[in-house]
C-alpha cells in the first residue's frame, strides 16, 4: 500500500507546524522522517493516521483519498512513543483489542495473538498485566497490537525514544525483520540519525515543518543538497567560499563545481567534508593532494576502537566556517576527524588534506520588505540595492486593515515597487492587524533580513511613548528571529558599518551578523565600545573587543576598534555615528518572544529614535 501526501499544511494558532509537505512512499517501503524535536514530523504522522486534520492538502492511501476519513476507517497501525499501551489490560487483551472491535471470533483472535507474540519475542506472556512489563516489552506489545488486524500502513512515532540504548538496538532489529517479513509500508519518525540510518530505505529530512530533502541514506549523507541535511545528518565541516569561473575557492583550495549545482561568478559556495574524508599525515603530502593546512590537535575523545579528534588550523583566507561552529573570539579553522584509538595524539602537529568533498546547492538569501502602500519608498530602494549585492530574493509584504482593501493596497504597493525598480520581488498581501500579520509572515517563512521603515502616524498606538518607532515596527522587532534593517532616509551604497558592543552585554550575534553583512557588501567595519567611567577602557572591554575582531577575521573581515566615553551608551553611539558618518549602525535586539525587551530606556530604542541612518537590529541568539 502506497502513501501519498499532497501539500499538507497544518497550523496551530499562528504557528505553522507543517508547511506544504508532499511525499510519495512506495509499497513495502520503510520511510524515516528525521528532524529535530518540534520540527512537525510527529504531526505529519498524526495527519496520516487521521488523529489530526490538516488545514490544507490531501492524504492518499493506495490511491484512495482519506483526508476526511476518521482514524477508525483508515486502516493504519500506530505505535506511539510512550504510555499508549492499555495499562489496565493484559498483554492478550491489548493485542486482541483491534480484533475484538472488528468482531473476530475468539479462536481466530487467539491464533493471531499467539503468532504475533512469537514474532515480537514475547511468547507466553499473554496473561501478564501490561503495567507489569518493562518499557521495551511494552513497546513490543504496542507493535504487536498495531499489527494484529493487518493494517496496510504502519506508523511509528519515535517508538524507541524512551528506551535505553541496548534495548533500542534490539528493538530496531526486530522491527526491521518484522516489517520486511510482513511487507508492510511503514513510516518511522525519529530525531536519531543513527536510528534513521539503521532502519530506513529512504530518509526524509524535516526542518521547521518543511520536508527539506528526501533520499537514500547514502545519498543524503554523502551528497546532501542543503546545509540543514548536511549538518543534521552526521558530523561534518562546512565552509563558505566563493565561486569563480566554474570553480569553488576556499583559500588555497580550488575545486571544480559539479554541473547540477549552478553558481554565478562571485556567489557563495558551501563545501562539505565528513570526518572520514579528512586525511592526516605527519609529513607534508604531495603537490596534487587537496591540502588544507597544518593543524594542532586541540580536543580528543575516546570512542572505543577509535578516537575523535579536533584539529585547529589557521583560517583559510576568504572563507568562513559554518560547521562545526567556531567559538566566539577565535578565528581558526576547526576540523573533526577520527583516528585509531592507539594513535598518539597530544599536542601533535599534523598535515590535513581532503580525501573527498561535496558542494552544496547555492543558498539564496531572502529579504522581506514591509510596505504599507504610502509614504517614502527609501526602504524599497535600499532593498533593491541590497538584493543585487546579496543576490537575494525579495518578498514585499503589505497588510490591509480589512480584506476588502487588499486590492487597493496591492495596486499601491505594485506602483511603488515599479517606482523603486524592485521588479523581481514577490508581492504578498495579507489582511488584518498589520503587526500581527507581519509576525505570522515572519514565523512562516525564514527570512535572512527584514527591511522596514518608519511607519506612518496612523499606525501609532501611543505616539509620545513610541515616538518614531511605530507599533508595527516594534512588533516586528519583538517577534522576529531575523535581523531587521530599519531605514529612514535614502542611503546607498552602505559602505561603512558601525557595530556597537556597548550595552554591557557582549553582542556576539551582532558581531557575527553585522560582520557577515559587511563582508558581502564589501563594507568597512568599526567596532565601538562606549564607557561611562574613565577615558581608559576596562581590560574586560578590551578583551571583548579583541575577541570580536578575531570573530570578524573568522568571517574574513577586518575591523577597527574604537573606544568612546559618554554619559549613556546611546549618546556615545549616536555621536560616533555622526562623527564617523557611518551608513549602518548595528545594535543588539532581544531574544525573540521576550516581551519586556523594549522599554523606554532601552539603548536600541534610543538609537532607533535618535538617528536617521539605517539601523540593523540583530536579535540575540536563543
Amino acid at each position, binding site marked *: 500500500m502506497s502513501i501519498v501526501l499532497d501539500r499538507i499544511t497544518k497550523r496551530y494558532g499562528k504557528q505553522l507546524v507543517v508547511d506544504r509537505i508532499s511525499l510519495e512512499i512506495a509499497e513495502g517501503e520503510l520511510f524515516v522522517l528525521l528532524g529535530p524535536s518540534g520540527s512537525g514530523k510527529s504531526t505529519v504522522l498524526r495527519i496520516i493516521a487521521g488523529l489530526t486534520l490538516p488545514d490544507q492538502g490531501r492524504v492518499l492511501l493506495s490511491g484512495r483519498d482519506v483526508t476526511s476519513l476518521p482514524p477508525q476507517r483508515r486502516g493504519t497501525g500506530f505505535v*506511539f512513543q510512550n504510555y*499508549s499501551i492499555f495499562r489496565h489490560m493484559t498483554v492478550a487483551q491489548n493485542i486482541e483489542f483491534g480484533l475484538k472491535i472488528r468482531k473476530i471470533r475468539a479462536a481466530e483472535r487467539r491464533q493471531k495473538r499467539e503468532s504475533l507474540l512469537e514474532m515480537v519475542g514475547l511468547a507466553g506472556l499473554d496473561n501478564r498485566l501490561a503495567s507489569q512489563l518493562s518499557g521495551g516489552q511494552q513497546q513490543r506489545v504496542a507493535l504487536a497490537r498495531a499489527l494484529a488486524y493487518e493494517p496496510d500502513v504502519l506508523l511509528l512515532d519515535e517508538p524507541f525514544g524512551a528506551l535505553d540504548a541496548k534495548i533500542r538496538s534490539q528493538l530496531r532489529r526486530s522491527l526491521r525483520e518484522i516489517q520486511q517479513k510482513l511487507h508492510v509500508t511503514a513510516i518511522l519518525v525519529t530525531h536519531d540519525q543513527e536510528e534513521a540510518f539503521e532502519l530506513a530505505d529512504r530518509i526524509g529530512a524535516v526542518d521547521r515543518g518543511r520536508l527539506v530533502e528526501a533520499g537514500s541514506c547514502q545519498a543524503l549523507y554523502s551528497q546532501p543538497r542543503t546545509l540543514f541535511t548536511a549538518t543534521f545528518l552526521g558530523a561534518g565541516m562546512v565552509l563558505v567560499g566563493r565561486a569563480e569561473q566554474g570553480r569553488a575557492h576556499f583559500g588555497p583550495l580550488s575545486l571544480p563545481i559539479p554541473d547540477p549545482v549552478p553558481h554565478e561568478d562571485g556567489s557563495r559556495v558551501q563545501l562539505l567534508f565528513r570526518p572520514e574524508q579528512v586525511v592526516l599525515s605527519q609529513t607534508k603530502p604531495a603537490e596534487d593532494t587537496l591540502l588544507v593546512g597544518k593543524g594542532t590537535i586541540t580536543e580528543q575523545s575516546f570512542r572505543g576502537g577509535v578516537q575523535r579528534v579536533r584539529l585547529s588550523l589557521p583560517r583559510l583566507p576568504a572563507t568562513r566556517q559554518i560547521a562545526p561552529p567556531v567559538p566566539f573570539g577565535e578565528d581558526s579553522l576547526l576540523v573533526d576527524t577520527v583516528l585509531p584509538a592507539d594513535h598518539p595524539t597530544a599536542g601533535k602537529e599534523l598535515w590535513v588534506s581532503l580525501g573527498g568533498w561535496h558542494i552544496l546547492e547555492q543558498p539564496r538569501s531572502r529579504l522581506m520588505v514591509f510596505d504599507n502602500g504610502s509614504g517614502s519608498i527609501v526602504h524599497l530602494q535600499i532593498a533593491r540595492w541590497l538584493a543585487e549585492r546579496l543576490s537575494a530574493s525579495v518578498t514585499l509584504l503589505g497588510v490591509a486593515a480589512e480584506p476588502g482593501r487588499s486590492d487597493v493596497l496591492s495596486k499601491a504597493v505594485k506602483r511603488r515597487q515599479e517606482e523603486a525598480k524592485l521588479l523581481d520581488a514577490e508581492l504578498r498581501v495579507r489582511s488584518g492587524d498589520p503587526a500581527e500579520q507581519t509576525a505570522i509572515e515572519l514565523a512562516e517563512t525564514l527570512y535572512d533580513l527584514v527591511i522596514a521603515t518608519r511607519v506612518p502616524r496612523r499606525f501609532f498606538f501611543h505616539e509620545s511613548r513610541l515616538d518614531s518607532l511605530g507599533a508595527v515596527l516594534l512588533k516586528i522587532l519583538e517577534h522576529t528571529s531575523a535581523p531587521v534593517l530599519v531605514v529612514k532616509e535614502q542611503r546607498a551604497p552602505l559602505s561603512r558599518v558601525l557595530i556597537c558592543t556597548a550595552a554591557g552585554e557582549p553582542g556576539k550575534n551582532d558581531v557575527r551578523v553585522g560582520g557577515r553583512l559587511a563582508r558581502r557588501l564589501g563594507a568597512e567595519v568599526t567596532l565601538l565600545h562606549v564607557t561611562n567611567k574613565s577615558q581608559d577602557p576596562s581590560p574586560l572591554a578590551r578583551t571583548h573587543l579583541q575577541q570580536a575582531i578575531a570573530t570578524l577575521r573568522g568571517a574574513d573581515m577586518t575591523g577597527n576598534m574604537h573606544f568612546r566615553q559618554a554619559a549613556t551608551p546611546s549618546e556615545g553611539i549616536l555621536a560616533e555615528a555622526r562623527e564617523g558618518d557611518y551608513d549602518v549602525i548595528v545594535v543588539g535586539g532581544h531574544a525573540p518572544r521576550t516581551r519586556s525587551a523594549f522599554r523606554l530606556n532601552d539603548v536600541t530604542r534610543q538609537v532607533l529614535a535618535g538617528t536617521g541612518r539605517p539601523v540593523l537590529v540583530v536579535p540575540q541568539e536563543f
Partner: protein
Amino acid sequence: MSKSEKASSAASPRVRRSRGERVLIGAAVVYAAALLLGPLIAAVWGSLSEGLAAFVREITTRDAITALRLTVILAAAATAINTVFGLCIAWVLVRDKFQGRRIVNGLVDLPFAVSPVIAGLMLILLFGRGGWLTSITDSMGVKVVFATPGMLLATVFVTLPFVIREVMPVLEQIGTAQESAAYTLGASSWQAFWHVTLPSIRWGLLYGVSLTFARALGEFGALLVVSGGISGLTETSTLFIFRSLDDRNYVAAYATALVLAFLSFSVLILMEFFKSRR
C-alpha cells in the same frame, strides 16, 4: 504485589525516629482522635443513654424512617446526576482549550466557597413565590421550592465539585495517547471511552462518587432553606435531627445522627477497601 509489600514491611527492622518526629506523630494522632472520635463517642453515648430499646424505638418512628429514606434517595439521585455531568465537565475542562475555560474552572469551586444556606436562598430567589423562573415551572406543573425537586437541586449544587475535582487530575495524567491508540485500532469514540478511558480513571471517579454521596447524606443548610421542613414529606434526616433537638428529643437526634454517620463512614471505608485492593 501488595502482599509482597506487606511481607517486606513486616520483616523490616524497627524504624528509628527522632524525638521531634515522635512528638509530631503523637500530636497528629491525638488531634485527629479528639476531633473525629470525640463527637462519635458522644453520639453513641447520647443515643444509648436511655437504653438500646429507646434507640431502636426512636430510629423506627415513621418520621425518622421517611426522613432517612428521603435522605438516601436524594443522595443517590444527586450522586447519579453529578457523576454524569461531573464527568462531562471534567472532560471538557481537561480536553478542550476553549475561551473562558479558566473562568469555568474557577466556577466549579463555587459550591465550596459559598455557604449552603446562600445556595438555598438563591434557589428561593429563582423558584420561590414570584421568583424569576417560577412562572415557567408553574406552567409545567412542577413545584420546586418546598418540594423534592428543589431539595435535589440544592444537593446537586452543593456536591457538584467532588467528581470534577477528583477526575480532572487523573484525566490530565493519562493524556490522550491511549485513546488515540484505540481510535487507530478501530474503536469508536464511545468504545474508546468505555474500554480505555473509563477503566483508567475509575479510581478517581469512584473516589469522587463516594465523596459526593457522603457529602449529600449530610447536607443541611441549603435543605433547611429550600425544603420548608414539612415532617414526613420534605424532611431529611439532618432536618429531622435539627427538629428533634429543638423538641428536646435528644435520643431521637443522637440516634439518627449515629445512623447517618454510620452510613457516611461505611461509604468511605468501602472506598478505602477498594483502593487498597487495586
